[in-house]
């Protein structure tokens, strides 16, 4: 009866077998002149696709820049970027394919810790260095992978430290006395805000409200209403994107403007934030940033110019994910320049020592891939996002207290 | 000896619409009792109450001396009360044989046994032969004609060796030859000691087959008696012609 179906299954299996066996034996890199193929799986569809595309632009921009200058050690850089649809299953398949089927020379990381962990383990298994522009959550570093390097100034959780330092730098009578914490339940935002809370409590800032909210919460009004009723001096929010916008909108509707408003993410998006919350409502809001328009860090000016040339827009319209991805490439270029070699072993051993200048500042890594620098504090002033702390990078002095909504 | 089935003062309404109003009925052992009445008089509702598919609002149902007012259909089926449906509910994707086997009832232990074992097949084959379904025994019921499906459902209820069978319009929509076949089977089984309660529209069939006849109108029992008396009874004429 359905002998045919059985046959189909067998034939399929046999086909798979043969294609599997006949996959190229592959030459293990090293020939000068052959292109340097770099593989990365990026979320071009699905939940993380926005940042995924920004990451793709950053990688591409770096590759173009390097190739225009003759490539790396004479080898043209060739990117192979595939989509993981924001799926942890697909990301594993993709890195397997990149490493074992397409035999890429190097791998770059995907977007988000959630995908980076399974992906980095695949890379580790085959001895590939894994440089990722995203994936700075605590769980990532708990993996203790020696091939992993998080290309940002500090682990995400510590990106609020700069804000704490800023508060502590204020004279005692100008510090906020009370603070409310609204924390998005995801691998970064909530731990980040918790980290800030612990440090501020230790410094004597009283916590009057603390609440974690799930990521699918569309309506933050109930929570912001509860916060507004307590009238805290500071609102410290561990946010991602949309929730940051919603928080501000709710506060505007509730007619409550705290004297300090810190949002860990979203508010540092130069184009979207004013677009979503209204330009008049951005004034005085604080946020951490690694790269910002007008940064004086190494390569930043070139990057900005190249970005605008290739993708249009202004410096203000560049997503910092692109800058972070670009920095990943910068690190690779630097390794090649210093060691005159470009293989995974060299990359791994080199990066565990010394410091590496990038457009995000100078980076160095501990054994588990955690960077040991610090973020910058940026603030919205007159419609522009300006670094205000620490003084070494500040382009303006911090505005405090935050003015009322609408300017 | 007590009657096989006693329905005593059963009422049931749907929302504000009464379907049965204090209806009573008795089925004597080894009778072929007809239940007739105009459309919407509550015949099918009464069937459903008797078989436990519907719960009565008030009143009692006794079967074989036991109060079964709140019994579930499965329990009644195991006690020997089975029924057919007006639209012949058979399992369309099961074969004729399987339709019979599944109606045969089996315990937990047998659940893990073969789908159709030798004993099942033996019992089913007897019925298949009796009902002349041999040619289609291995076909899914969906392939049968309407009349064949009615026969199949009738045959299936016999698998559980019932004492009382409720037939809901056994001859509706089938050809004259099949009506005769149905009558033949009912007589044959009656002779073998099975009691019938039949809802039937075809008065000729009722006259030939049944005694007594119970007439239901607007949810009430209005007449019980021999078939000859039905036609002359004023209340019955009223019910059929008047309303």
């Amino acid at each position: 009866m359905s002998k045919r179906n059985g046959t189909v299954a067998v034939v399929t299996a046999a086909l798979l077998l043969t294609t599997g066996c006949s996959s190229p034996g592959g030459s293990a890199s090293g020939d000068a002149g052959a292109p340097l193929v770099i593989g990365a799986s990026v979320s071009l569809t699905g939940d993380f696709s926005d940042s995924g595309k920004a990451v793709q632009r950053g990688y591409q921009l770096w590759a173009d820049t390097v190739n225009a200058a003759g490539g790396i050690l004479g080898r043209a850089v060739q990117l192979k970027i595939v989509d993981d649809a924001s799926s942890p299953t697909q990301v594993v398949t993709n890195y397997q394919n990149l490493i074992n089927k397409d035999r890429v020379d190097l791998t770059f990381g995907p977007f988000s810790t959630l995908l980076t962990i399974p992906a980095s383990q695949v890379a580790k298994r085959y001895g590939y260095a894994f440089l990722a522009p995203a994936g700075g959550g605590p769980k990532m570093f708990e993996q203790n992978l020696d091939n992993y390097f998080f290309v940002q100034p500090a682990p995400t959780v510590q990106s609020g430290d700069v804000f704490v330092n800023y508060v502590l730098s204020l004279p005692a009578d100008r510090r906020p006395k009370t603070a409310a914490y609204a924390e998005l339940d995801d691998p970064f935002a909530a731990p980040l805000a918790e980290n800030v809370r612990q440090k501020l409590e230790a410094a004597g800032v009283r916590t009057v409200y603390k609440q974690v909210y799930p990521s699918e919460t569309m309506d933050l009004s109930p929570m912001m209403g509860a916060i507004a009723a307590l009238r805290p001096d500071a609102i410290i929010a561990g946010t991602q994107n949309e929730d940051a916008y919603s928080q501000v909108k709710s506060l505007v509707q509730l007619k409550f403007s705290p004297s300090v408003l810190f949002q860990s993410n979203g508010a540092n998006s130069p184009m979207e934030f004013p677009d979503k919350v209204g330009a008049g409502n951005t004034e005085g809001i604080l946020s951490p940033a690694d790269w910002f328009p007008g940064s004086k860090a190494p390569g930043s000016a070139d990057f900005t110019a190249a970005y605008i040339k290739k993708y249009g827009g202004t410096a203000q319209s560049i997503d910092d994910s692109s800058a972070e991805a670009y920095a990943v490439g910068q690190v690779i270029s630097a390794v090649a320049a210093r060691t005159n070699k470009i293989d995974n072993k060299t990359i791994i051993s080199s990066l565990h020592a010394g410091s590496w200048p990038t457009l995000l500042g100078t980076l160095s890594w501990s054994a588990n891939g955690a960077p040991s620098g610090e973020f910058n504090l940026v603030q919205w002033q007159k419609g522009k996002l300006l670094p205000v702390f620490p003084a070494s990078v500040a382009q303006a002095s911090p505005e405090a207290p935050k003015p009322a909504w609408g300017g | 000896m007590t009657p096989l089935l006693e329905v005593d003062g059963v009422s049931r309404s749907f929302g504000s619409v009464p379907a049965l109003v204090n209806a009573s009925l008795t089925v004597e052992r080894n009778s072929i009792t007809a239940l007739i009445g105009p459309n919407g008089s509550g015949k099918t509702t009464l069937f459903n109450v008797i078989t436990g598919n519907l719960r009565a609002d008030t009143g009692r149902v006794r079967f074989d001396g036991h109060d079964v007012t709140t019994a579930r259909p499965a329990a009644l089926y195991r006690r020997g009360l089975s029924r057919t449906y007006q639209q012949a509910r058979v399992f369309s994707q099961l074969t004729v044989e399987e339709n019979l086997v599944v109606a045969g009832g089996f315990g937990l232990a047998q659940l893990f046994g073969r789908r159709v074992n030798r004993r099942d097949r033996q019992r089913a084959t007897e019925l298949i032969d009796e009902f002349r379904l041999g040619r289609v025994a291995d076909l899914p019921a969906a392939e049968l004609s309407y009349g064949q499906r009615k026969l199949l459902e009738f045959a299936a209820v016999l698998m559980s060796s019932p004492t009382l069978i409720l037939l809901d319009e056994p001859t509706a929509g089938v050809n004259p030859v099949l009506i005769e076949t149905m009558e033949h089977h009912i007589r044959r089984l009656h002779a073998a000691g099975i009691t019938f309660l039949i809802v039937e529209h075809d008065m000729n069939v009722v006259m030939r087959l049944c005694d007594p006849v119970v007439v239901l109108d607007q949810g009430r029992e209005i007449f019980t008696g021999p078939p000859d008396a039905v036609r002359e009874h004023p209340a019955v004429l009223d019910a059929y012609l008047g309303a």
Partner: protein
Amino acid sequence: MRMRRGVGPVRAAVFFLVLAVAPTFGLAHWLLTMLVFTLMFAVMASAWNLLGGFTGYPSLGHVAFFGIGAYAVVLWFQHHDISSGYEPFLLLPAIGLGVALVGLPIAAIAMRTRADVFAIVTITLLFVGQTLAFNLRDITGGAQGASIVPAPFPADSYEIPFYDALVVLLAVSMGLTWATMRSKVGLSLAAVRMDEDKAAGIGVRVQTVKLLAFCVSVGLTAMIGGIWAYYEGFIYPQFAFDPLISVAMVLMTFLGGRATLWGPVLGAFILELAQQYFAYSLGGSRFYLIAYALVFLVVILVMPRGILPSVRDRLWRRGRRRIVDAQLPAGDGPL
């Protein structure tokens, strides 16, 4: 039911033999990885079929049990160290059994509702599971996710233990399906699917077989969840309780053919391989979703009963026979 004796077992033996020896031919890692994921879905589709296919209760919440299985492995690793790396596999039967028991009261409530409402109630299960995974931080790690120590298998044969475990589970799942089809459980389930009230009325043990199908089905699903978590090395509520996994099980079963032995497996091999391959090679064109949806629609509209039944029908058209879980009777067409 007179089946053509021998053909079924021979086909199964060949299939599993090919599966079992395939890795010894030195399949590339990328291919083994794809096969591992494909086998996961084959088992899950086959398990889903036991409930959704045979009973006709379309569960859209099976991934809730997948997630429970995944977190069970995580929990186990919180209290135990890894040594040989095989421990999670040995743990699987316990997970399957445990989740089957957990499923029992859930099934008893959910199966009070019928087809469409049941589908929705099971969706609810999925979200309850996800919310619990997010919020029971002490157990699950919440939104931080939970990581598992990577298996200490050598890189050369890293996928093999996972692969072998999955082949065994597929054999178990298909074996159970086969046994169901041949036993009165299958007969009863078919009756439930076609007319549950009538079946209950004639004394079919409706409740028993429904609950049985549900528990076995979710138990198998949970075991796959456990393997998946171990293979991924890191789980996160949104991934462990991903509605798309539920949808995939349903889709594969429908594609291959409901209430058939081979249909769900065929569906899984086609869909999962195609999906993994195209997402990789087409590099995330946004038309991917549209293409997927269109294939889905065309399959349902053109072959509403799935590939296997439709193909069989076409081959045996002169028999004009409908095959669902009733195997085709032998012989030539009706007389």
